[in-house]
C-alpha cells in the first residue's frame, strides 16, 4: 500500500532471500553509473562495496543528454546522445571511458525528402542500444520524432535502419508530433536478442511494440493484450503507448513492459501480453515510466509507479516514492521504500532513469526528475541518496567496472 513505509514480503521468495544466497564477488571493482540529464552528463564510480562514490563531470554542461551508454563489448566506449536548446542533435563518442570525447561525423538524420515534400528532422536522439556481441561496432539509435538508425562503426556514422522511417503504415502509426509525449514522440526500447542478432524489438511512444526476426527487413506489431486509453480502439497500433520494454537476459523469451496503461509480461512464442500490474495495490496503481529486469532471474523485475490519475500529475503517488518488486513474474508485488523520503517527495523517474547492475546482490539505481541519484546495494531493500542538486535526470545506466 502507498502508505505502508516498511517493506512487506509477499509470496515465498523475498527479494533479499534470493539475493542473500548469491555470491558477493561480482562488484569487486565497483560500478560505473552513467547519468544523463537535461543539462549535461555525469559519471559516478563506486568502490567495491558500492558505498563510496566519486563524481566525474559535468560532461557537456548545458547540453540536453538523453542517453549515455557504455559498450559492454569493450567496456570503454561511451556514446552520448546530446543536443542543446539552440543546436541540433548529435552523438558524442569516447573510447576512454569519458576522458576525451569526439563528435560523430554523421549523427542520426532522416533521409532528405523529395522536393515539395515536408521531410522530418531528428529533434533529438533519445535511445542508444549496443548491437549484438557478434557485431562489434554496431549500435542502434531511436530518435524523436520516431526514427530507427544504425551505426556499424562504433557510433562514428549513422544511417537510417530498415524501412520504417519512411514507410506509410509506420508513419501513420507514429502519428504527428502532437500525438507524442510533451517533448516529442519517441522510438525507444531497441532490443537485440542475445541469442540471435537478427531478432530485434523496438517500441514507440506512441505507436506500439514491434518485432523483427530477419534483421529488420520486416517488422510486425506485437500489441495483443495491451490496453489503451478509454475510448480508443486497441486494434489501432497508433494508440498504444509502451513506456519501456525490457528483455530478460536470463530468459530472452520473456519481456516485461511498463506501458501508459499498466505493467505487462510477454512469454514468447505467445504474442499476448498479460497485465501483471493488476496485482499492484489499487492506491498505487500500475502506471509509471521505467521497467527494470534482473540480470539472472527472469521472475524478478522492478518498477517505479507514478500518479496516473485525473490530470496525470506524473509524481510519486501521494508524494511517497517507492520501487515495487516482483519475484514471481508479476503474480505479486512488494513495496520497497526504505531510505526514500516517507512523504512530501513529488518527484518521479523517467523511462530510462532506472537501471540495475549485474552484481550480486543486484544494485539498483534511480535518477529523479528533481535531480537526485539514489542507489540500493541489496536489490531495492534499502535506498541511499548518492547525489542531489543535479539537473532533471533523463537516463541512468550502470556497468560493473572491469
Amino acid at each position, binding site marked *: 500500500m502507498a502508505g505502508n513505509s516498511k517493506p512487506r514480503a509477499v509470496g515465498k521468495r523475498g527479494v533479499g532471500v534470493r539475493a542473500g544466497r548469491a555470491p558477493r564477488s561480482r562488484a569487486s571493482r565497483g560500478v560505473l553509473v552513467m547519468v544523463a540529464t537535461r543539462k549535461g552528463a555525469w559519471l559516478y564510480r563506486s568502490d567495491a562495496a558500492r558505498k563510496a562514490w566519486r563524481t566525474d563531470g559535468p560532461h557537456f554542461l548545458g547540453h540536453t543528454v538523453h542517453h549515455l551508454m557504455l559498450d559492454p563489448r569493450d567496456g570503454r566506449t561511451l556514446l552520448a546522445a546530446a543536443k542543446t536548446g539552440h543546436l541540433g542533435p*548529435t552523438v558524442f563518442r569516447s573510447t576512454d571511458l569519458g576522458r576525451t570525447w569526439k563528435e560523430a561525423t554523421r549523427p542520426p538524420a532522416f533521409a*532528405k525528402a523529395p522536393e515539395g515534400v515536408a521531410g522530418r528532422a531528428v529533434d533529438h536522439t533519445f535511445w542508444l542500444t549496443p548491437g549484438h556481441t557478434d557485431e562489434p561496432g554496431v549500435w542502434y539509435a531511436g530518435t524523436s520524432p520516431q526514427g530507427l538508425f544504425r551505426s556499424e562503426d562504433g557510433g562514428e556514422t549513422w544511417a537510417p535502419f530498415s524501412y520504417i522511417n519512411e514507410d506509410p503504415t509506420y508513419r501513420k502509426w507514429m502519428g504527428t508530433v502532437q500525438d507524442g509525449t510533451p517533448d516529442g514522440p519517441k522510438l525507444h526500447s531497441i532490443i537485440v536478442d542475445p541469442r540471435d542478432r537478427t531478432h530485434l524489438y523496438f517500441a514507440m511512444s506512441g505507436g506500439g511494440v514491434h518485432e523483427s526476426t530477419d534483421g529488420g527487413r520486416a517488422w510486425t506489431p506485437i500489441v495483443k493484450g495491451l490496453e489503451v486509453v478509454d475510448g480508443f480502439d486497441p486494434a489501432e497500433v497508433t494508440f498504444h503507448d509502451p513506456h519501456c520494454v525490457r528483455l530478460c537476459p536470463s530468459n530472452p523469451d520473456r519481456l516485461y513492459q511498463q506501458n501508459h496503461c499498466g505493467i505487462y509480461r510477454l512469454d514468447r512464442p505467445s504474442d499476448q501480453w498479460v497485465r501483471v500490474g493488476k496485482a499492484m495495490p489499487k492506491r498505487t496503481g500500475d502506471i509509471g515510466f521505467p521497467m527494470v529486469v534482473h540480470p539472472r532471474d527472469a521472475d524478478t523485475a522492478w518498477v517505479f509507479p507514478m500518479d496516473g490519475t485525473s490530470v496525470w500529475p506524473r509524481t510519486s503517488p501521494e508524494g511517497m516514492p517507492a520501487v515495487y518488486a516482483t519475484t514471481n513474474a508479476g503474480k505479486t508485488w512488494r513495496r520497497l521504500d526504505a531510505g526514500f523520503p516517507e512523504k512530501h517527495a513529488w518527484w518521479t523517474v523517467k523511462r530510462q532513469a532506472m537501471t540495475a547492475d549485474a552484481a550480486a546482490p543486484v544494485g539498483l539505481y534511480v535518477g529523479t526528475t528533481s535531480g537526485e541519484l539514489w542507489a540500493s546495494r541489496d536489490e531495492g531493500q534499502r535506498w541511499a541518496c548518492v547525489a542531489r542538486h543535479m539537473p532533471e535526470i533523463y537516463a541512468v545506466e550502470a556497468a560493473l567496472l572491469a
Partner: protein
Amino acid sequence: MRVHVPSALRSYTQSSEAQASGTTLAAALEDLDRRYSGIRFRMVDEQDRIRPHIRIFVNGEQVRELSQPLNPSDEVIIVQALSGG
C-alpha cells in the same frame, strides 16, 4: 567572408570569428563545415531548414533561406536565439 560565430558553436571554431567562402549562404555553410566538421548540422537540419533557435544575419539583415546570395565582402552573423530556461 567574415562569419561571426556564437558561443554555442565556438567549440568547433575555437574563435568568435571564422572565414568562409561561397556565393550563397548554403555554400558558405558547407565551406564552414569543411573547415569545422559537424558545425553545419548543428545549425541546419537534414531537410536544409535553419534550426528553430538559430538566426542568421547578413550585413545586419536576417535571412531565412539558404539560397541567399552572398558576396565576399558580406558579413555573416550567426546568432543563438532564445531557447528556454
